[in-house]
């Protein structure tokens, strides 16, 4: 529908969730609401899958509708693992797309093994955390991935490697920063089981594609990512989410603003200074 068609007092009809993604519709949506008008969401909004699966790079089946307003309450272990779930979803979706991309054919045999391993691991992590969280799980965010940005990244080997490296080092940093807030030792152990695997990924990707100026023989744990006391990267949750957002992979309104509705309490722990380079 166009904005012109809609007179005041006349209900705005939204036929699909996808329609809400068009800025004009969204503006109209908000304007209509603010004017006291009514908005009618057709049943198709709730049931539709917006894309066909044939050319879906993000995994089998139809892409779900985009999700919006994802937020995190970090006052519980569940909240912290929801953050982990978001990261694992993004990583799994991305590596699935990488393995299916045209550029993948140009990777070496070793690199193909690496990326299939990465994809498999992140899918297992994603499904594990989803199962663990049950009804608290973050909704399937594949529909919220900006396919223009994704396809741009997939168009070159270099951009694939750069984004992968950023993801994995961010994964390490986020888990290293979140551990102190967990309240149950079993969950801390579980986070540790993820963290060292992410560190193995990160080291492999820095080997394959060291950041500019970093010695290839020491890049796996280079001086840019290990501090002077021999400790790895670490970020607090807010920065981790900013870094996720800065990839541009998620549509702008996927995360709520602010995305963190409640920070960890002092009884859980207190934030420490972050250590994360601009180009990990």
């Amino acid at each position: 529908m166009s904005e012109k068609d809609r007179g005041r007092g006349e209900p705005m009809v939204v036929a699909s969730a996808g329609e809400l993604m068009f800025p004009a519709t969204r503006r109209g949506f908000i304007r209509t609401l603010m004017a006291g008008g009514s908005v009618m969401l057709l049943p198709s909004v709730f049931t539709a899958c917006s894309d066909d699966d044939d050319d879906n790079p993000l995994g089998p089946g139809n892409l779900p509708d985009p999700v919006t307003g994802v937020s995190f309450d970090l006052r519980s272990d569940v909240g912290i693992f929801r953050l982990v779930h978001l990261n694992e979803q993004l990583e799994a979706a991305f590596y699935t797309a990488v393995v299916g991309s045209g550029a993948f054919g140009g990777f070496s045999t070793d690199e193909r093994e690496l990326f299939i391993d990465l994809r498999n691991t992140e899918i297992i992590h994603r499904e594990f955390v989803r199962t663990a969280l049950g009804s608290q799980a973050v909704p399937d965010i594949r529909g919220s991935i900006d396919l223009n940005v994704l396809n741009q990244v997939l168009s070159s080997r270099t951009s694939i490697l750069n984004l992968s490296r950023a993801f994995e080092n961010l994964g390490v940093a986020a888990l290293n920063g979140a551990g102190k807030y967990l309240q149950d030792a079993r969950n801390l152990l579980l986070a540790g089981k993820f963290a060292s695997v992410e560190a193995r990924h990160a080291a492999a990707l820095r080997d394959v594609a060291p950041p500019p100026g970093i010695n290839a023989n020491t890049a796996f744990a280079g001086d840019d990512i290990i501090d002077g006391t021999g400790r790895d990267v670490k970020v607090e949750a807010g920065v981790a989410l900013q870094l996720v957002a800065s990839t541009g992979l998620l549509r702008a309104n996927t995360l709520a603003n602010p995305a963190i509705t409640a920070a960890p309490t002092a009884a859980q722990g207190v934030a420490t200074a972050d250590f994360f380079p601009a180009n990990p």
Partner: protein
Amino acid sequence: MDNQQPILDGIDPEITERLVSRRDAIRRGASMSSRLAAGLAMGSVPVALAALARDTFAQTPADILDVLRFAFILENLENEFYRAVLGTSAVAAQNNAFAPVRALIPDAAKQTFQQIQKHEQQHVDFLKAVIPQFGGTPVTITAADFDFTGGNGAGNGPFARATTELDFLLLATQAFEDTGVRAYKGQAGRLLINGNNNADIALESALRIHSVEARHAAKIRRIRRQRNPGDATLRFSGYVRGGARAAGGAGNIANPPAAVLAALDLIYGGATPESNTQHVVFNGTSAVTIDAATLTGLDVIDASERQAAATQAFDEPLTKEEVIAIVRDFIRDDPARGLP
């Protein structure tokens, strides 16, 4: 011990002015550790310690100190191992022992070893500086305390070939690093005291060292893979695939000693072996065990690969006792100093 017993902190004059209950003391750490955190973030042990001297209370949870002491022994073991390999040990006999294999290390791998050794030294220095702040005294350890052949001082243990064969050396190195990863993972829970910021910093530091050890282990595994391109156990990704000796990937070692294979069984096995796919999560109400190999939603992964992929996707812990069983023959016995 009575939790309500008042304590006096003798370090910070501000604190001596007040009586605080021990329970309050533990909580109070929260308000004090920003200086410590800032010091650590600057990568400066002295700055961090200046803060710790004010932050630390006379009584700190014994678990934390025990973990730090344990880690200190392990980091010394690793550090002195690399120094011996690189010929920079303070003990000439250790340097001499590794001279044959040293000559075989390509320059690229040597740079890798140097980088790893630098981190182990940093971990040693970090722990050495932190232990006194938790009320402990770091044990004095020298290179002479170690027997890198795994012979408990005899110098002719099952890993002796690491001093003359490069592939053997790399296997031993990978095994040391993976033991370190598993040791830290197993100890993390003992550092978990919510709201005690000194404990938080110990925990966060341990986690950050833990992931560095994982980077090391992955790199060594990848070097081994490049020397043995046909061995799919040695994942290019650096993952640990499967459990026990099979996960070690000793296929390229001719006639490996039975004792080495037995050691690999311990290093990649244990009560929760690396092949484990069942993990416990506490959801706030109950503890649930989930099998990572049989989750729904794994369709993208080839069915024949799911079990192995599930073992790769999770690294597993070792208990302190399991770690000691692994490392004991690399350390000359000295119970008086707490050396196993």
